[in-house]
């Protein structure tokens, strides 16, 4: 190995010749990755490019097949996240791994609990106090004694962030930290990042949201299919440049919404109330894409879960094609032609240890029958078809869902519901963690399905997505609807991001 001593003043992390394969899949091929001290470094690449794999190697979750890592000028090797934290590196994972029955405080201080003096007895009071203080620092109004299982996905994500940041690491890896956060929380994260940066902490930032990259990062590296493509300073490139480095071809980064004819009302709710939302009424027309915007916790996802029969409704009526329907559980909803893509793909979307094929066909088995048996040929063809359309990157459709990269898992969840061709499609954060190319692919599919007569409801924390795709936007504020914006208003400039944000904050 070449001596790296001269550059150490500048480069904090230096990965040379990293290779890693899983079976036949080469996740990383002779990758070089360098990060300068004190910078926020963006790591970019399509879904399955190998970003998470390299980060997991750095914190010792995976072992590289080849390659050497220097951290702060010294050769670096660890056998797991605990050692990595001791060495000064912490990580926010793309897939959250929360312990549902731990409290927030216990979760933040897992493996570094406070004890009374030198005794083995836990000092819960001190742990809770420190947790409360951290939460306050992050303007996060939650009781540290609440159990993790009661938190929403976004709240758990914030706890993960707080946890990683509170380790006093000199290098913090953030693997898609904002994929389930709203604009306010994202802003809070960015303030934290700047704060850390001013203390000399270095950050590796992975995200598929290009606007964030330019807001918060200094430099970048791009991977494509497990190979290092390029790196440099962000001041020298444009979004377009980065995208073509990632994809290797030109891709439309703007959402290609195709306007189609909007028909009669297909789906309507009246006065829906439940835990987290009150008195919600709206209707969706055939061919319409209805966007729901709001801060996380404002009741959007909760309403959708209520409609889909996952949580009980306390009052309200639901109409499908003019007739009132009662939905007691998701099966009722699916049978009536309503499908829902859940924001939490790990808990509600996938059976991680079953194959991609089985995951995609699970809600569609009724259509894949030949007599009493599943028509396996038809199943394979249709699954290949839809996953191909969404460009799921996988060795085969028989691969475990677990072995896919985060974005590809999301595409599997999308495939499973798009294949079911429902009358009403509810999409809660449909493009969470999906790369730029695939995102416009998904948006194109949404337009196509809408044109075929589907009514689509989209919940998204990404304002550009909501604004780009929706025919109409409803805005939530603290569990109630607080305004509506039509596509024309956005197109002719009478409404913009600021208008929506103002309404989200209750105006």
């Amino acid at each position, binding site marked *: 190995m070449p001596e790296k001593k001269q550059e150490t003043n500048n480069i904090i992390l230096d990965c040379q010749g990293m290779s890693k394969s899983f079976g036949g899949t080469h996740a990383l091929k002779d990758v070089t990755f360098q990060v300068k001290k004190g910078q926020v470094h963006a790591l970019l690449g399509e879904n399955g490019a190998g970003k998470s794999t390299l980060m997991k190697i750095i914190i010792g979750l995976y072992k590289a097949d080849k390659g050497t890592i220097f951290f702060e000028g010294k050769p670096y090797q660890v056998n797991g996240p605990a050692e990595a934290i001791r060495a000064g590196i912490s990580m926010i994972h793309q897939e959250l791994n929360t312990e549902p029955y731990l409290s927030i405080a216990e979760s933040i201080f897992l493996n570094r609990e406070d004890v009374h003096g030198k005794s083995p007895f836990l000092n819960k009071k001190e742990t809770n106090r420190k947790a409360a203080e951290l939460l306050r620092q992050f303007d996060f109004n939650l009781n540290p004694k609440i159990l993790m299982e009661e938190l929403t996905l976004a709240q758990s994500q914030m706890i993960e962030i707080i946890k990683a940041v509170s380790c006093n690491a000199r290098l913090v890896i953030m693997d898609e930290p904002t994929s389930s956060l709203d604009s306010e929380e994202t802003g809070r994260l960015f303030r934290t990042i700047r704060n850390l940066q001013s203390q000399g902490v270095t950050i590796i930032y992975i995200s598929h949201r290009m606007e964030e990259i330019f807001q918060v990062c200094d430099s970048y590296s791009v991977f494509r299919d497990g190979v290092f493509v390029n790196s440099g300073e962000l001041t020298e490139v444009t979004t377009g440049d980065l995208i073509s480095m990632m994809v290797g071809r030109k891709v439309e980064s703007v959402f290609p919404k195709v306007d189609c004819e909007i028909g009669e009302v297909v789906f309507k709710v009246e006065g829906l109330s439940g835990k987290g939302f009150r008195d919600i009424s709206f209707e969706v027309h055939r061919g319409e894409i209805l966007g729901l915007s709001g801060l996380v916790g404002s009741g959007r996802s909760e309403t959708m879960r209520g409609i889909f029969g996952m949580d009980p409704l306390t009052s309200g009526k639901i109409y499908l094609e003019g007739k009132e329907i009662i939905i007691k559980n998701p099966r009722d909803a*699916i049978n009536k032609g309503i499908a829902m893509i859940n924001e939490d793909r790990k808990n509600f979307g996938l059976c991680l240890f079953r194959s991609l094929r089985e995951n995609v066909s*699970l809600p569609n088995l009724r259509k894949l*029958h030949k007599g009493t048996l599943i028509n396996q040929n038809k199943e394979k063809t249709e699954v290949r078809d839809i996953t191909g359309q969404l460009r799921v990157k996988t060795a085969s459709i028989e691969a475990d869902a677990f072995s896919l990269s985060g974005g590809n898992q999301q595409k599997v969840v999308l495939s499973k519901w798009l294949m079911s061709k429902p009358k009403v499609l509810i999409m809660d954060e449909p493009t969470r963690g999906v790369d730029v190319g695939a995102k416009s692919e998904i948006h194109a599919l949404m337009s196509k399905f809408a044109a075929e007569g589907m009514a689509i409801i989209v919940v998204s924390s990404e304002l550009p997505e909501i604004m780009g795709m929706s025919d109409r936007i409803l805005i939530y504020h603290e569990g109630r609807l607080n305004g509506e914006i039509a596509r024309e208003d956005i197109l002719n400039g009478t409404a913009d991001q600021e208008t929506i944000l103002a309404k989200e904050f209750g105006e």
Partner: protein
Amino acid sequence: MEKANEKKILGMDQHDLSLFMKRYGIVFIMVGMFLILSVSSPNFLKINNITNVFSTVALNGVLAMGMVFVITAGGIDLSIGSMLALASTTIGIVLQATGNIPLACIAAIIICTFFGLLNGLLIAKFDMFPFVVTLASQLVIRGLGYVISGGYSFALANPKFSKIGLGKLWNAIPYPILILFGITILAFILLHQTKFGRYIYAVGGNINAATASGVNVFWTRVGSFIISGFCAGVAGIIMTARINAAQPNIGIGYETDAIAACVIGGTSFAGGISTIPGTLVGIIIIGLIYNGMNLLGISSYWQTICKGLIIIGAVMLDTIINKKR
């Protein structure tokens, strides 16, 4: 698919090897045991011994084919041992009263299936732990066996009925083997080729995702226990016919062997992972263990100890091979 795997065996790297072992390792163990036994014991390969292995395997096999559904759906059924006894006494009563063999068999199957249904309903309806529910219901079921037989064992003296357990088709293939064969095929189709089988995997793999995908979680769970009860009924018939007597005290510990066969065959206790061919291999391995120990003249006390150790070994192997993150 098959071809691709064959190609890889030659220039296999470590990951491929572990994947390969995960899938087929258990087959090698079975073949290895076969080879070792045929070398170390001259009697092993004799036709008589082999049919013997398989017919003892049949009883456990039928039980394991039911158990694999329950474990895959994320449960466990400890009550099948006592169902054997209940089946046996039921057959005894019906045969004594009517002499009608099909009726006796059907009655045994119905009563065991019914208790399977009851187990399932309790577990799925009230969301109780399968372990606890079946641990308790096993007492009820065994007690019922004692009640309906008055606590006595009685000989059946029905040579026609005993044929089910001891007879052979064309004087070559024992009927229990045929029954196991039939049940295995049914189980294979059900688990691997029907909607219900997929639902079993989904419920065991991730019950929340299954619910959100519109799977009828309630009936899927209940269904797994019904199948287990049904298989226990069939196994009860074989067992009663083999001993040609109705006994309320038989079947103790049979759930252990069935669970062991599933686990050795690659069924994950966490649910959601299993295969029918794997389970069959697990069944045969257990049969070989018993037969091998008999042939090598190991005393039955030591056999029990060995059995326990081997199950621990199998579970350990399973966790090591299937190590997941």
